[in-house]
């Protein structure tokens, strides 16, 4: 099983940017266009890595550390997540707290790097990012608590391995809540629009305006890894009760991951961005859903 975990990690590290191109292809399909080539994300990463770095003189070591820490923390966090019944590389009781902290660390450094530039726009993006994640994080943690209560397990691996079909209604709620959190944390519509270039409405994109070259490549790669990471948690909920074989789980899980990317593409093609003032309510809804799930599980 540990070998499967290594395979999963390798697939994740390699295929994560591909999720973006699936999303873009789906959106292009709905827009009646051909869309960028499949390997476009990789080409962009390569291009950026070959460029030089331009850093403002007013920035400090924080600005340099931001992309590196965020990529490192996200990759580390990836070692903690199972894909269905494929175990995580590292599993111990309470590891989901570490997961949340690693994601938090990555975010902290991204936000700090944005603030380090001293630009008003980036500060605004940082503030929005922090506000939204402050609302999304309780939902994420509560979702883990629901699963932990339902399965009586305390590590992510055990939790997904023991997830049965009898959880029924509560699992549906958790899935929906995790989907909302997934969209929000990955800066997708309806929370944030990755294609927008209007600074006033951007959240994630505005934070990385001053990054360039390899720095920017690292940030893009970290974002792709984060999408994969949250995606595994999301698809693990419907996947693990039905598939108990490790290999099948890996195969189906990766397929499901790309299906999830298609779903994101569909959502992005069919819905509009929410007004910024409505965002707290949207994330509150996710929290409420997990709370109800907890109520159902405990009752």
């Amino acid at each position, binding site marked *: 099983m540990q070998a499967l975990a290594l395979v999963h990690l390798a697939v994740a590290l390699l295929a994560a940017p591909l999720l973006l191109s699936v999303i873009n292809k789906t959106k292009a399909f709905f827009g009646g266009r051909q869309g960028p080539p499949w390997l476009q994300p990789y080409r962009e990463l390569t291009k950026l890595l070959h460029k030089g770095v331009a850093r403002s003189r007013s920035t400090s070591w924080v600005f340099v550390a931001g992309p590196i820490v965020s990529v490192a923390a996200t990759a580390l966090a990836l070692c903690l997540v199972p894909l269905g019944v494929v175990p995580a590389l590292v599993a111990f009781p309470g590891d989901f707290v570490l997961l949340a902290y690693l994601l938090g660390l990555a975010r902290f450094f991204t936000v700090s790097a944005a603030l380090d530039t001293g630009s008003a726009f980036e500060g605004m993006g940082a503030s929005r990012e922090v506000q939204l994640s402050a609302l999304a994080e309780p939902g994420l943690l509560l979702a883990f608590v629901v699963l932990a209560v339902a399965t009586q397990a305390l590590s992510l691996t055990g939790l997904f391995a023991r997830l049965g079909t009898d959880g029924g209604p509560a699992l549906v709620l958790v899935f929906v809540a995790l989907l909302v959190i997934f969209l929000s944390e990955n800066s997708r519509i309806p929370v944030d629009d990755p294609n927008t270039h209007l600074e006033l409405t951007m959240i994630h994109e505005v934070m990385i305006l001053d990054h360039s070259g390899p720095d920017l490549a690292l940030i893009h790669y970290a974002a792709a890894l984060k999408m994969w990471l949250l995606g595994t948690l999301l698809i693990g909920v419907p996947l693990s009760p039905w598939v108990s074989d490790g290999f099948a789980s890996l195969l189906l899980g990766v397929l499901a991951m790309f299906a999830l990317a298609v779903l994101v593409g569909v959502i992005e093609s069919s819905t509009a961005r929410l007004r910024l003032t409505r965002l707290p309510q949207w994330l*509150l809804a996710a929290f409420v859903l997990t709370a*109800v799930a907890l109520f159902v599980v405990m009752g």
Partner: protein
Amino acid sequence: MWTEFALMLLVLANLRLLGGSRLLACISTAAFQGVVLGLLPLTVASWPLDPRIVLLSLLSLLIKGWGLPVLLRKALRETSVNREIQPIVSLNLSLLFGLAVLALSGWLGSRLPLPTSASALGAPVAFFTLFTGLFLVVARRQALTQVLGYLVLENGIFLFGVLFAHSTPWIVEVGVLLDLLVGVFVMGITLFHINRAFDAIDSDRLAQLHDLAVQRPSPTEPTE
């Protein structure tokens, strides 16, 4: 399993009612709640189904899921001054309040000795629905929302009755349902009158009667 699912839908409907900002959507949510409630007796009953239970279920489905919402929608259409909910307590705060009450109901329900093993969730959800109804009556400005709150309150009591009070005679249950229908009907009629008299179904305008301010009488004409 199906009972649990229905109960969960009821909880979600309550939260939607607490957090919803459009009157029409809230009415639809209450109707949805009525439909779920109408179907609930079928999930609890043992097979083969007692025709009485089926009939009662159909009747409540008809009244709660169709009759009352149609009445309220009509009231809204004819009084279409403001279709946004006007909360006294803000919507987000209402939602958080709902969560707190949900926890409270869970605690309350777990402490009561219950006669049947219908569902451990039954009593908490019934109490939660009841509290949601009471909250809507108190914390919303429009008269229509107050009727909606009353309806939700009744739904909570109905849920409690379906799950736990099996000894109610048939005729009484029908009487209770009909009374509810007539009650909301009378409230609906009153709403029309309020709308005509005040040009808004805003219960804030209904605040002339109190003790301290003396109404200035005119010495010219009798009222009686």
